């Protein structure tokens, strides 16, 4: 039985298979409409995340399966003090596969150790969010046709943003990727990631101004400055508007550059960018459903 805890749990060859399957689902949705008939997905969300939860629910529903679950810790047995280990043992009796989000880092791994069914980490604190990374990779691969030889700019909260950390870790496995990190001093990429890039001799640059690097980028990955990652409101208000992508900045970019964003966006991408053909973030949300469908099929051995 396999679980998904980190995007690195799959080899690049396994990811290729997963993405091929996701692309086939995209092209032939009818073929998969009953692939999970009679199967149940449990969405165990100990903290609110409408988007990820609905994406999982949509994925399972589109496969013909059904969904049970809870969407915040208050409405689950965790409020009564039940451990994650006990909860997953019980959920294993009710469902065939589980997607778990938890504010504590490593909680889905604890669940996977006690579980009788595959567990998907749907986000654990600031640690991992592998299905977002799979979504990002599938989007890049589907829209460009490959996962190597490009320059990607990552912009915004690079210190606390787990999606950014996971994406970097996943991309370093492909050839000739160059990173440009665009952030304020306070929100720079953590040292351990910089150390890893140096060790692997991967080219990177850290800059403060988005405008300076726009012409170099093949992809721009925008992120939100998340309020909940800050301990005081003042810092949040001071930093949140630093990096706003608008039509003026887009005018500096290559014609085939693509803008990605894990969503939800607050104001870091101006709505005027939405109509630009290079804005790929809503398409990315669509790929999120396809990749979760492919993942559910793969972990249930139905692929």
């Amino acid at each position, binding site marked *: 039985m396999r679980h998904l805890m980190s995007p690195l749990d799959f080899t690049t060859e396994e990811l290729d298979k997963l993405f091929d399957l996701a692309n086939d689902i995209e092209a032939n949705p009818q073929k998969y409409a009953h692939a999970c008939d009679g199967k149940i997905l449990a969405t165990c969300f100990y903290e609110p995340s409408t988007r990820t939860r609905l994406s999982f629910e949509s994925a399972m529903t589109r496969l013909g399966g059904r969904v049970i679950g809870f969407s915040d810790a208050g409405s689950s047995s965790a409020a009564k003090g039940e451990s994650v*280990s006990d909860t997953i043992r019980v959920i294993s009796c009710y469902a065939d596969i589980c997607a778990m989000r*938890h504010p*504590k*880092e*490593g*909680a889905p791994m*604890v669940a996977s150790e006690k579980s009788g069914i595959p567990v998907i980490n749907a986000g654990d604190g600031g640690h991992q969010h592998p299905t977002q990374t799979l979504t990002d990779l599938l989007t890049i691969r589907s829209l460009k046709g490959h996962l190597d030889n490009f320059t990607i700019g990552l912009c915004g909260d690079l210190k606390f943003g787990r999606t950014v950390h996971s994406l970097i870790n996943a991309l370093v496995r492909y050839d000739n990727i160059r990173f440009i990190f665009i952030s304020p001093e306070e929100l720079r990429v953590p040292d351990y990631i910089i150390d890893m890039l140096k060790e692997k001799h991967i080219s990177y640059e850290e800059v403060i101004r988005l405008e300076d690097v726009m012409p170099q980028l093949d992809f721009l990955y925008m992120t939100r400055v998340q309020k909940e990652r800050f301990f005081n409101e003042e810092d949040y208000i001071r930093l949140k508007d630093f990096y706003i992508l608008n039509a003026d900045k887009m005018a500096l970019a290559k014609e085939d550059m693509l803008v990605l964003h894990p969503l939800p966006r607050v104001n870091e991408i101006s709505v005027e960018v939405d109509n630009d053909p290079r804005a790929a973030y809503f398409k990315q949300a669509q790929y999120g459903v396809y990749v979760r469908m492919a993942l559910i099929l793969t972990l249930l051995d139905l692929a």
Partner: protein
Amino acid sequence: MLNVGKIEEGFVLDHIKAGKSLDIYEHLQLDKLDCTVAIIKNARSNKMGKKDILKVECDINMLDLDVLAFIDHSITVNVIKNGEIVEKKDLVLPNQIKNVIKCHNPRCITSIEQELPHIFYLADPEKEIYRCKYCEEKYTESAKKD
């Protein structure tokens, strides 16, 4: 000069940093063993000035000494059989350490799930970096002292 007699079978852990022998005693869980243990504190040492020594009289297969490498790999481990040193053990960093140090990341699941063991894995043998199995937080010297 204090004299502690020879042991027939067991271990002599030499060159322990002065004052650290009780930490080692605890990590090796010697309190749980029904055997003779001599703790020598602040012994004179040409190399170190002062050092601690632990002598443990027991079956040589009884102790898991891997954890010593993690605590302090300058410790010399002498294996004794029939009153003689039969081996000087090289300490190798263990791939995994269980319940020796605690994860201090307040966001880690180990901070709330009480029965969970605190497991760290060797993430980088060259730099001797251990990370929490669950949250991957790097352990620091300050965590080691606790």
